[in-house]
């Protein structure tokens, strides 16, 4: 079809999503206006780039994702130079020059060059087997590599990296995603949803390594063999995919002298700084914003086509949306969730179905939402967010979604419950309908929440529906119903009590904080200052050597291994085993005091020396000096073993019956470093005169001629409480066994912050006695304690002197320390 000479020529550089869509939009408006020429560097027709992920995963073939086949170009009289890269634009002559000495003049020119994948400048980046994930060639290279099996590493835990890893696993490779941040897809997901995604991926065979930065790509004979991380770890691999981001492809535009920022700058009509040249797609920057998704590109293409066919179009920016294309993983994320002033979270978790929902409200309106596992209401939240509607009156039911909210709208709560259909689900966790509950109440004569839980399982899991079940009881029984209270919950983040939490952690093998919060259906995204330290302790106690302590969930004293003082300085208390010290230790302490100008030195009530007023940044250096003299942390800050107070005993005292000092030292040396629900203090007295005050300690030993009396449950702080006699043993070894067994029982049963005397009041002395007098049970308790101690008897000071958590003891930056001059 020869073009009539009157037609203007429209040249498009880039045969991708944006270039072809722009042409389609122009043709739709005015099919005869332009003679159209398209250049595409890729040797193929226009295809749907976002579907490369399913192609990689083997769920689609290339033929399935072609958008415009050869017939389309032919039928529309478009000349496609495929596999031809444009090398220069001559704006004076209005001509583009392409590879192979091809030059084509234009009246209007569209830049649709997309973006280039960012390649990290790591040593080894040029090795064979290192690929990006951008076009069909990359996919073919990955599919070929996957044919050989083996291990792939993907750098980048964003959308692309995850889809690449998932695809490679589907193709039979083992794949690991290495991500710099601590949360997958951190721009779209919060930590809880990111954790669930991590688990969902693990279930599909994709491993993740978070918080990892890459140092070097290793190779042999020019081929990649592994990735080395900055922490020294090496991940072996035969294929390495870099999916760390994209950069607008602006080289041509820059060389032609067009205005370029991060992308080619365009106005609202999609025009560049040259009125004959336009841009669409990922290559451009509009109002300071570059886009990396297709939805905005469709908007841009409409505007551009308007401009090119006579009306001046106006593009105002887009709201972004995309999909994670991993089969069976249902995720939605919209708006902000890193909040700000006046933000409020509503969280719902359903452990049974693996659901996590979080809606963020700001000044009574929806500001954002993250949904995992059930994204059905995503669109609804998104509409509420965009319309900025007040949601105060539907706040209570908002998190349960549109159906629940609209079903109850406008009704007062009791009427709403009465109006609910019998088939309506009340308890989402256990799938119990209203009818089942009301007929159980009437039919079985149930009168309490507990009874309903036992009979129907409603409200027996997360407890979110408890108010609803109580209303049903009230409705069915009238005034005969009285609300009751269950066990005290850990904190406001959960309805569960400590026992239930501890049991669930062990029974379900929960080994991380996000896993526990999900399984126990926490109602906040990341807990609070009360429950996090408790969970951290419960996990640490349940999985010694396995659970990685979460330092951010430790109270400051335990995080920095010193006691914070009223002025923000710290106190340092080294251990003096059993209250013994020596000239060398005292000399070292004196030297430290001088060297760091420590203002106060005090003998504590626990038979050791406290150095008060140490600056935080000096702590590691102070510890280094104390370590050098053989002293370790006294854990004066710990919910753990504090002091073992002793008296001089049979070594010196004229009344001493046994070696109380020696036993105290032995106990302290075996038990130090152990974490417990609350602090634990021991005392060992050499005779019933009890100079070590053993009978007001958590565990005390009173030596007598015939052996050792072991006492438990004393305190002399907020409450003065004498101990109870637990048992009497004849040898020192038995005394150590019993004491460690009691401690372990307390470690396993105590509620966080509950001291031994309170635990004893709750479980009873008889229970403790039964567990520690029976030789088998005593033995296993002792063994568990000894096992846990293998990982605990490590001086936290020495670890920090060696550089652990160094960032804790140095300011983030000293660049603002002084007035600018």
């Amino acid at each position, binding site marked *: 079809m020869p073009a009539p000479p009157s037609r203007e020529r429209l040249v498009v550089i880039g045969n991708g999503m944006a270039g072809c869509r722009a042409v389609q939009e122009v043709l739709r408006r005015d099919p005869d206006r332009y003679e159209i020429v398209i250049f595409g560097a890729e040797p193929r027709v226009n295809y749907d780039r976002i579907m490369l992920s399913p192609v990689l995963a083997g769920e689609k073939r290339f033929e399935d994702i072609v958008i415009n086949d050869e017939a389309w170009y032919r039928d529309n009289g478009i000349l496609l130079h495929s596999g031809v890269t444009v090398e220069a634009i001559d704006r004076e002559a209005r001509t583009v020059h392409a590879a192979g000495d091809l030059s084509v003049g234009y009246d209007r020119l569209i830049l649709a060059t997309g973006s280039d994948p960012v390649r990290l400048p790591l040593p080894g980046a040029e090795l064979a087997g290192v690929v990006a994930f951008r076009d069909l060639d990359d996919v073919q290279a990955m599919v070929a590599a996957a044919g050989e099996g083996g291990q792939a590493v993907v750098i980048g835990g964003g959308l692309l990296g995850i889809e690449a890893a998932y695809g490679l696993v589907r193709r039979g490779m083992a794949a690991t995603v290495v991500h710099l941040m601590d949360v997958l897809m951190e721009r779209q997901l919060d930590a809880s949803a990111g954790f669930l995604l991590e688990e969902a991926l693990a279930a599909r065979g994709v491993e993740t390594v978070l918080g990892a930065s890459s140092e070097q790509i290793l190779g042999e004979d020019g081929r990649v063999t592994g990735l080395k991380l900055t922490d020294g770890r090496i991940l072996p691999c035969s294929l390495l995919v870099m999916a760390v981001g994209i950069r607008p492809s602006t080289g041509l535009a820059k060389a032609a002298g067009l205005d370029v920022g991060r992308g080619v700058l365009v106005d609202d009509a999609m025009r560049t700084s040259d009125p004959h040249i336009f841009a669409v797609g990922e290559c451009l920057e509009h109002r300071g914003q570059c886009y990396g998704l297709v939805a905005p590109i469709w908007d841009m293409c409409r505007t551009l086509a308007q401009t090119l066919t006579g009306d001046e179009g106006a593009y105002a920016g887009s709201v972004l949306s*995309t999909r994670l294309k991993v089969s069976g993983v249902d995720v939605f994320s919209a708006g902000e969730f890193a909040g700000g002033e006046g933000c409020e979270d509503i969280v719902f978790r359903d452990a049974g179905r693996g659901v996590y929902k979080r809606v963020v409200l700001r000044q009574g309106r929806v500001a954002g939402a993250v949904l995992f596992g059930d994204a059905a209401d995503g669109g609804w939240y998104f509409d509420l967010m965009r319309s900025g509607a007040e949601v105060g009156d539907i706040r209570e039911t908002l998190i349960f979604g549109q159906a629940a909210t609209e079903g109850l709208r406008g009704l007062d709560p009791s009427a709403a419950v009465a109006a609910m259909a019998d088939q309506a689900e009340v308890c989402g966790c256990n799938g119990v309908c209203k009818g089942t509950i009301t007929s159980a109440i009437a039919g079985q004569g149930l009168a309490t929440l507990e009874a309903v839980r036992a009979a129907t399982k409603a409200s027996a899991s997360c407890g979110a529906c408890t108010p609803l079940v109580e209303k049903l009881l009230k409705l069915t029984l009238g005034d005969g119903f009285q609300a009751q209270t269950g066990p005290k919950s850990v904190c406001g983040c959960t309805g569960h009590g400590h026992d239930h939490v501890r049991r669930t952690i062990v029974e379900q093998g929960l080994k991380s904080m996000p896993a526990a919060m999900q399984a126990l259906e926490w109602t906040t*995204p*990341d807990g609070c*200052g009360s429950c996090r330290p408790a969970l951290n302790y419960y996990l640490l106690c349940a999985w010694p050597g396995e659970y990685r302590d979460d330092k951010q969930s430790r109270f*400051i004293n335990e995080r920095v291994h010193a006691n914070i003082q009223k002025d923000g300085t710290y106190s340092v208390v080294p251990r003096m085993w059993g209250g013994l010290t020596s000239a060398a230790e005292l000399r070292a302490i004196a030297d430290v005091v001088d060297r760091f100008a420590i203002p106060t030195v005090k003998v504590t009530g626990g038979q050791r020396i406290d150095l008060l007023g140490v600056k935080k940044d000096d702590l590691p250096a102070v510890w280094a000096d104390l370590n050098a003299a053989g002293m370790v942390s006294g854990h004066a800050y710990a919910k753990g073993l504090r002091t073992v107070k002793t008296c001089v005993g049979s070594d010196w005292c004229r009344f001493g019956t046994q070696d109380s000092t020696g036993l105290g030292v032995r106990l302290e040396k075996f038990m130090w470093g152990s974490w417990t629900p609350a602090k634990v203090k021991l005392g060992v007295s050499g005779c019933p005169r009890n100079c070590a005050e053993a009978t007001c300690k958590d565990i005390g030993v009173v030596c007598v001629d015939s052996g050792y009396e072991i006492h438990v449950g004393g305190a002399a702080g907020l409450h003065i409480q004498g101990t109870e006699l637990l048992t009497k043993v004849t040898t020192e070894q038995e005394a150590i066994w019993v004491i460690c067994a009691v401690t372990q029982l307390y470690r396993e049963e105590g509620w966080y912050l509950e001291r031994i005397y309170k635990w004893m009041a709750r479980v009873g002395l008889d229970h403790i006695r039964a567990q520690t007098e029976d030789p088998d049970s005593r033995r296993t308790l002792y063994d568990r304690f000894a096992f846990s101690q293998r990982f605990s008897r490590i001086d936290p000071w020495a670890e920090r002197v060696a550089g652990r958590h160094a960032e804790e003891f140095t300011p*983030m930056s000293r*660049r603002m320390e002084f007035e600018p001059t």
Partner: protein
Amino acid sequence: MTIHLLEPPVLEPPVLAPMTWTDVGAVTDIPLRGARRVPTPSGDVAVFRTGDGGVFALIDRCPHKGGPLSQGIVHGRAVTCPLHAWNIDLATGQPMGADQGKGCAPVAPLRVEEGRILLGRPR
């Protein structure tokens, strides 16, 4: 299964008083649910990073008795002061719950650009 993932909207940068901005480090220099200190001639600034990646800066002094907020436990968008456990809203510096209305820890000017944290000093 259809999945929608919508990126956070791009917010217009707030209009700010004339400031000198100092780059004090990368967002990832602060642990998740943690804080770091930046000393200045008028005392420390505490820079916090929440579990969902938000970054906030407050003058490092609790409105109660001056406790160093940078040493507290960060949860949600709040920090619990290490001295007497007041909860402070990171976005406003206001005490929350029962202590609401009892003073505040001033918010420090902060910008986050391409993963870097900038603190402002009025010019």
